[in-house]
């Protein structure tokens, strides 16, 4: 996917590399600070790097965001250990939902789901701001 971005295993453009690293740092900070949202910034970063293969870009986003979420969750659990016991009842549902979503990815229209969830995100975000 990124073969044009590398030359002999090295990045072609150091400025772009530094910019993308900075964006990733910001994505990580937001992910750690509010517990979500890193994926959107990583997606914007990857879109800057390559525009040809959207599905591979989404696969890369997932591969970057997952370890970021693990690290953020680890820091949260160290500072507040009761989070682990509070989260336990939800984890099987998250696991089944995530696996089902990945299975359905090529079978359903993601556009409708995306519209619904972005609308809910605006509503929930506004509610959190106004509380």
């Amino acid at each position, binding site marked *: 996917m990124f073969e044009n971005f590398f030359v002999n295993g090295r990045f072609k453009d150091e400025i772009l590399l530094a910019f*993308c690293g900075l964006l990733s740092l910001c994505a990580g900070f937001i992910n750690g600070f509010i517990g979500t949202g890193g994926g959107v910034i990583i997606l914007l970063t990857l879109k800057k790097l390559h525009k040809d293969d959207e599905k591979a870009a989404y696969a890369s986003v997932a591969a970057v*965001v997952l370890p970021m979420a693990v690290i953020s969750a680890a820091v949260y659990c160290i500072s*507040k250990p009761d989070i*682990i016991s509070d989260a336990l009842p939800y984890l099987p549902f998250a696991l089944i939902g995530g696996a089902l979503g990945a299975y359905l990815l090529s079978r359903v229209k993601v556009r409708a789901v995306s519209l619904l969830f972005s609308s809910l995100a605006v509503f929930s975000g506004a*509610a*959190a701001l106004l509380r």
Partner: protein
Amino acid sequence: MNDVIGCAVCFITALSSGLGAGGGGLLTMFLTSFANTAQINAQGINLLCFVSAQTPASVINMIRYKPDMRLIAFLTFCGAAGCVLGAVAASYADETVVRKAFGAFLTAVGVYTFYRTVKGR
């Protein structure tokens, strides 16, 4: 009753996450608004649920699409440093500040995603 609804919200947001449509912040919103969970705890629960939901999807997608591991390693390294800074900052910050930041970001991402989906980009 709230536990049952919470599990349903978790399942639906995980499903959406697996589909690549996002939705991770909604569980945090439900937990803080309806289950009287503190903002930081809700964010931690949301992160653990995200890890559970995203692990199978990530493995499937990485096998299927074989993304460039050098780029992933670089972005992950930079992101990891930010994660530690952000999570430590959240544990020291005032809960209202974290909630307002969460609300502002969720609203902005919602508007951006809605616009991008409508425009078909």
